[in-house]
């Protein structure tokens, strides 16, 4: 339950700068926080659930953490890193072309 609350709080915290901030860099950071909150939630939901992974004989039975969500989150982190890198590249490019990173000052981002 507490994990769910943290997830929602972090998600909204990431959502806020995307709409309210006046800096593209902060918007990218907000997107990153959103991604991290989703990954955190995915891991927390799947830990100590007792779902047995494929275990060799001779290993003690007990509650195990499901490994599949970890693999999914790892892939998600890689994708998140590459989208962030691409977005930051585009922001740098925009800064070179217009000399600003404020979305209000760039005419084309509004329409």
């Amino acid at each position, binding site marked *: 339950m507490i994990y769910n609350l943290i997830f929602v709080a972090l998600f909204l915290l990431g959502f806020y700068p*995307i709409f309210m901030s006046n800096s*593209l860099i902060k*918007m990218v950071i907000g*997107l990153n926080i*959103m*991604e991290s909150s*989703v990954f955190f*939630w*995915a891991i927390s*939901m*799947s830990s100590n659930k007792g*779902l047995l992974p494929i275990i060799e004989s001779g290993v003690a039975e007990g509650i195990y953490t499901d490994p*599949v*969500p970890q693999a*999914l989150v790892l*892939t*998600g982190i890689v*994708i998140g890193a*590459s*989208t962030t890198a*691409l*977005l930051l590249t*585009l*922001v740098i*490019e*925009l800064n070179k*072309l*217009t000399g600003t990173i404020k979305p209000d000052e*760039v005419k*084309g*981002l509004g*329409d």
Partner: protein
Amino acid sequence: MNTEILLLILIPITTAFLIPLIDLINLGFRKGVVITAGIVESLISLHILIKYYEPIRAGTFSLKYHLGGWYPPFGINLFMDNLALLFSTLVSLSLLLIIIYSIGFIGHHEGKYYVLLFLMLGALQGTILTGDIFNLYVFIELLTLTSSPLVAFKRNQDGTEAAIKYMFYKVIAGLLFFIGVILVYLNLGSLNMAEIASNFGQITPEMQLVIIGFFLTSILIKSGIFPFIYWMPKAYSAGPSSVSALLSGILSKVYIYIFIRLFWIVFDFSLITEAGLSRFIVYLAIVSGLIGHILALQADDIKRMLSFSSVGHIGLIIAVLFLNTTAGIYAGLLHVVSHLIMKSSLFVGTGYLLQFTPSHKIDDLGGVAYKNNGVFVGFIIASMGMIGIPPLIGFVSKWFILLAFLEEKLYLGIVLVIGGSLTAVIYYFRYIYQGYKRMEVGEPKKERHVLKIFYREKVVTSIIHVFVSLVLLFGIFYKIFDLPLRLAAQNIMDPSNYIKMILGG
């Protein structure tokens, strides 16, 4: 195990990574490699069509490949049925035309362009063929990552802004999709689409709605339906024309394919109907279509006009698909084919014509028809198709859409089809009139790439003529699409067949 469908994904991705190496050896080889890869990809598609002609006709066609030898429900599997075959063949054949067009069209940073283009082709095929929902997520993100640099490819302010906006929408949609995937896994313990489809009824009804809500919002954002249309026109118009044709013609159709795959086959469509969501989406899509056509009227930039018209047509396709009748699905699939051909031909034609003008604005287009009349006539034929003039393919698909709406007595949909055609008459004729105005055409802008070499001009114009003749030929012989579309619609309406083909066999 059928290796053909693995090759459909592997060949473009391998080519993408080979291109930088080949550039190190000799820049002259690149064109040959690019064309060869495109042709090989199309040949594999045609090979599948010819080799399995009998099972395709019988409707029992299925090709499977299990990656790493892990059988479903454990490993990742690739799967092709009649629906996937239709989209996969369309993608590989139209991509071949666009690759050849690009050879005559893209004049700078060609190596990077082809790397992105081939990665995107691989991702498109992967999205169509995969049978694993997480793998689908990865391929969708790969589509976003490869298409946004293509949008920003001109390295000007417009393109960069469009790409940033595009990325924000798509990344948030991707996150929602990821949450959906995780929810499915936590509830069912499986990521295989057939396994999910057969066990989806075991989840509690509330959870089912939550999962469907996440996936639906995600794909609605990705395909650009009403509240989320604002990234679309700019992204489609900012890139080079070949990229616009690719995004508006092909990529948007693949998102429609994901729609169909997820909501008809993986999740039971009756769940969406029971929640009252299907009618809601029909109306949302109709509103989106009307907005697209109205905004196309006021656009005074030719590529922006074409992009807004795309918004209108995507709305139309989704509205008619979500009627969930056989006639509706048939009509929607037919419009997918016809919009793909017509919009691609309009964009490639525009890309050629714009080299003679100082800007994309309508006032600068005066007299452009006298520069190359053949291409401009092609542009006119394709736009007639968009309007829906009888012998062309646009008329056929709009006719079937009209019939599907009439069958459901959904009069707002009929307003969209007819109103869309009428507004299309106005906005296309504005440009055609401008094209034939006798006026001095201004000098091309300095930084824009102008086609200098003669044979490249020949390549570009011949591709435009191929596209336009397809618009004409398929309009007259639209019956050749009758069988594949009916078989694909049959696949869509009968999801249990999909489960049986993957899990039990």
